[in-house]
């Protein structure tokens, strides 16, 4: 919501203005387009976005597990 909610890809080549350009995250795109989810094209696109988000969170969970692994030896993590 705060990021602008505009389907626009900020371009780093724009220089300093890049940091002020609006964008839309995958999660907000899914929420904004939820009303049209019954349309086949939007349906598949939104599920692809969700799969990408899920994959990212799985990778992050795995990374957290790998970071904690050496700490378990010293009982610094459970």
């Amino acid at each position: 919501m705060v990021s602008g909610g505009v389907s626009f890809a900020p371009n780093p080549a724009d220089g300093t203005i890049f940091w002020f350009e609006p964008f839309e995250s995958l999660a907000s795109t899914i929420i904004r387009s939820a009303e049209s989810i019954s349309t086949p094209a939007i349906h598949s696109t939104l599920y692809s976005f969700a799969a990408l988000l899920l994959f990212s969170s799985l990778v992050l969970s795995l990374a957290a597990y790998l970071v904690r692994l050496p700490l378990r030896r010293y009982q610094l993590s459970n």
Partner: protein
Amino acid sequence: MADAAPPLAPPRRRHGRRESIWRWRRGDLVIFALSWLAGMGLCIIATALVLFFAVKGAQYLRPDLLVQHPSASVSQAGSGGFLDPIEGTVLLGVIGLAIAVPLGVTTALWVVEFGRPRWLARVVESTVEIIAGTPDVVLAIFGLALFELGLFAPLSFGQPGGAFGRSFLTCGIIVSAVAIPSIYTATRNGLIATPRQLREASYALGKTKTATIRRVVLPAIRRDVATGSALGLGRIIGDTAIVILLLGATLQIQTQSNTPVLGLLRGTGSTLTTYAFNASPAGDGNAPTKAYAAAALLLLLVLLLNWGVGRIGRIGGPPLHAERRLGA
């Protein structure tokens, strides 16, 4: 007659002189300053947020908004209050906790008290961590795909031809997943910290493992369960994505049928979060003052929950595992 010996005074703790931070290395000083700034920054952000919404709440939150039904209107004056979102928030919290508390507590009990085979317990722990890390919008879209199936049609709002996958029941089932990790973690930590002697004393009295869990372990960790439940409830009432996708975010509660309870559970509605979202300039409601009022009420609820968590932790003195740490 010899004088009675004076009572032994407890040995005094010797505190060493605190090392001046100006003797630290420059790199350590920088890290210390950055840590201090980060902590202060968070305090300032939290205070500013609470103060801002306290001012906005005092400005726009009126008692009549709490008892009026919302309605679609082009003017803010005619858009009513937010009684339905309040009812929706309460109902969703009840359904979510009714599902999450038994699941979270029994899972933690099995992992800590039984946990065999070990690999399966590790898989369960990892699964809970994955659920905790999964974005709520992914859970929501998964729930939508699941409950749109004809098999689950009786659970959701729909027509004879098919199901929409949206209802208080379907939303409550999926939203319980965001509360389970909090409840599981709090219960598990409570179980691990409960003294082993407590269980051994119960076994020595002839109690079985099941009876020990039911009569000794569970009462000992009830505060941890309550804390986890309050934290989980905070996550449920603060969720937006799942409510928009699985509850329909309708302005008023719409029941599926006239059947008293089932019609409501299969109906659609909204919560304070989705009401604030829709009423804000980013939504379609175009009622920013109502959005501020709903957000202030939501923040008040969350603050009350946090206060409640603190109170729960203090009721009846320190918990058993805290006593053990104190050496009592």
